[in-house]
């Protein structure tokens, strides 16, 4: 399992936009469109497969970089790959730290951690002092 859809849990079928190359040939007034071939090598097919593989490997490797935050749906969306079953763009690596619902506003995060930070600062303030012994 390399990618998973957070909406329908599909981990097999996906869609991606890939650029490929076609050959145009103007022959006796007609336009012929066909695969690009250099001798016996089909360059159109090869380019499609290579580009597909490149995008998929990029998304798997740079998981976070391939995601964009969508404020409307309040979740991360994959910029390149979508689910072929439900059409959702909430496609990530499994066990990704970029979980769709994990995004938190910085102000809210700071506010939530304010108390902990205050405790931390107090620790630092008294950290260089020796403990006071109780007088008998």
């Amino acid at each position, binding site marked *: 399992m390399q990618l998973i859809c957070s909406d329908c849990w599909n981990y097999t079928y996906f*869609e991606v936009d*890939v650029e490929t*190359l076609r050959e145009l040939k103007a022959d006796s007034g007609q336009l012929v469109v066909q695969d690009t071939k250099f001798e016996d090598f089909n360059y159109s097919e090869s380019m499609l497969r290579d580009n597909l593989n490149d995008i998929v490997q990029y998304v798997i490797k740079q998981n976070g970089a391939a995601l964009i935050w969508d404020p409307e749906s309040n979740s991360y969306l994959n910029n390149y790959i979508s689910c072929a079953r439900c059409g959702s763009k909430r496609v990530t690596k499994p066990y990704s730290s970029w979980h769709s619902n994990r995004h938190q506003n910085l102000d809210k995060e700071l506010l939530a951690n304010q108390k902990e930070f205050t405790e931390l600062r107090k620790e630092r303030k008294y950290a260089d002092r020796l403990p006071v012994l109780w007088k008998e």
Partner: protein
Amino acid sequence: MRIDCLSCGKSNQFLLPLWTSTTFKFNEDGSLSILHVKPLEILEEKITDNKSLREISCKECGSNEVDIVFNEYENQDDDEVSALEGL
């Protein structure tokens, strides 16, 4: 219709990049299989669109200096047209 390469003038084969929506699946061994390929751009529109003209390149020399003549008989004299019609 005629396509001319303004750089080498020899080739009648040209290359045009096109975006496609590709449906694929992960196989058990981690490899990819392509299930379906759907073009996202209409070829005719792309050829007639002047903005996309620079994307067409000559297969022989790779030059983007390409001229497309959609109706090569458009500028013919009346005599030539009537002669062709007579044939």
